[in-house]
């Protein structure tokens, strides 16, 4: 059985080789050779390769790290989105029974999932305990605090606009003095995050451009130092594609190395701040953990690096290679 399978595999491989036209095979072989040889060339000058990769890595790490940080902040706020609540501050004149009745009435509304009644006395107790004004409150004759109904809209009315509309309807009731939608600061937070995201995109675009120029310049110097080699290969009958190829692959490698380095830098930075973040989360009774990359994001980062590297070398190659002609 094993022998049979081995025989089939061998046959398939030979079959593929035979089916591919010779020109395609030559093309693939050329590319594979140059892919490896350009890597070897970089390996032979490790210091300068590392320096270029480091510059690219730092330039990529900055926006990437900020984006990951932003993702984490958004994850913190995910729990808030669903918990949009409307606080109804009732008229002072309403007593507990009337408030209870109102709460019961609201509970039956299809728009509302739940209502919690904070009685005036409870509100006062809570305020006394938390505010530190206990002594001062004791001297008051009357309870100055209104009763509060904390309304949790049903799922369909949890969205920002629907919840806002619901708050306004409730506000229109005569028993209600004031309706406050607690979504507001979630919205503000989301808006701030959006500004942050845009800002990071701008910084990212600028740094991406920087990577493009860094790779372009490195490749330009590489082209200049290999001038005689380019002249000779052109004289021997190398096509432009053949001459271009090693430089393009070199740029590709720079991009991939830079992206890998950026990945490592971000992981390192997050590892450094993980402990304090855990401590802070502990203070909020949260088990929040910093998350860095998942596989898709790593793939994206590498792809981004590779694309920038390739594009940078394209720029340099297009500009400088044609200028070199044998004399």
């Amino acid at each position, binding site marked *: 059985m094993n022998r049979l399978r081995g025989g089939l595999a061998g046959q398939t491989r030979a079959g593929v080789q035979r089916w591919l036209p010779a*020109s395609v095979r*030559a093309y693939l072989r050329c590319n594979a050779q140059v892919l490896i040889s350009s890597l070897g060339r970089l390996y032979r000058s490790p210091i300068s390769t590392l320096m270029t990769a480091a510059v690219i890595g730092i330039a990529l790490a900055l926006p990437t790290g900020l984006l990951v940080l932003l993702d984490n902040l958004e994850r913190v706020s995910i729990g808030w989105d669903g918990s949009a609540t409307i606080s109804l501050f009732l008229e002072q004149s309403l007593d507990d029974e009337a408030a209870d009745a109102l709460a019961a009435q609201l509970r039956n509304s299809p728009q509302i999932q739940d209502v919690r009644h904070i009685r005036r006395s409870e509100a006062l107790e809570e305020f006394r305990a938390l505010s530190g004004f206990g002594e001062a409150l004791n001297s008051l004759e009357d309870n100055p605090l209104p009763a509060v109904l904390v309304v949790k809209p049903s799922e369909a009315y949890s969205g920002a606009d629907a919840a806002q509309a619901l708050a306004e309807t409730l506000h229109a009731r005569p028993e209600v003095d004031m309706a406050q939608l607690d979504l507001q600061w979630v919205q503000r937070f989301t808006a701030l995050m959006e500004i942050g995201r845009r800002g990071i995109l701008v910084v990212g675009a600028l740094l991406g451009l920087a990577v493009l120029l860094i790779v372009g310049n490195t490749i330009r110097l590489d082209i200049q130092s290999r001038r005689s080699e380019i002249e*000779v290969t*052109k004289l*021997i*009958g190398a096509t432009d594609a*053949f001459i271009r190829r090693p430089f393009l692959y070199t740029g590709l490698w720079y991009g991939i190395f830079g992206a890998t380095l950026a990945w490592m830098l971000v992981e390192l930075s997050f590892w450094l701040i993980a402990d304090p973040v855990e401590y802070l989360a502990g203070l909020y009774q949260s088990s929040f953990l910093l998350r860095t990359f998942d596989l898709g994001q790593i793939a994206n980062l590498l792809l981004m690096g590779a694309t920038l590297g390739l594009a940078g070398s394209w720029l340099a190659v297009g500009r400088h290679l044609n200028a070199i*002609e044998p004399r």
Partner: protein
Amino acid sequence: MIRFDNVSKRYPGGYDALRALSLHLERGQMAFLTGHSGAGKSTLLKLIALIERPSSGQILIDGQNLSRLPRRRIPFLRRKLGIIFQDHHLLLDRTVFDNVALPLVITGLGHREIGRRVRAALDKVSLLGKERAFPLTLSGGEQQRVGIARAVVHKPPLLLADEPTGNLDPELSREIMALFEQFNQVGVTVLVASHDLDLISRLPYPILTLRH
């Protein structure tokens, strides 16, 4: 193989390197090209390799009209040529083997085939033992022979040489010329530019003399 019809070449600045030159070299022929320096020997070879384009006139190489050859086809014309330079133009950071393999590598030939042909070419110029050496460790004559091996490794139908014996002593020059004769005997068209009249006039091949 090579046909020039009324070819002129004027360099920017008004210098006329060639004026209304016509010549015809048949397939399988060997010829020398001579003339005092500045007579246009190098220009003529450069026109054949399309390093320069003529100002006027027509050049046909292997039946192909060069003036109608678009830029992207130039590499494929050059693959029909083997060019030998006076200063050999070897890549100093690569071994003899890699230098000679270059014309085969650019055509995308397989590894094993490249090795076989490179060794055959090096054997032809008696440098088989030096394939791992770097060009700078070789003598002038050996470097020139590496250049020749590189020019013939892909079996071009036309061999051009620009002062191939310029830096060599008479003994080595004769060896180099003998090599060219061997290639010619197997059907390669050979055009050698040289001002070594002593040497070339003793050989039984036509001599084209450029006069300015």
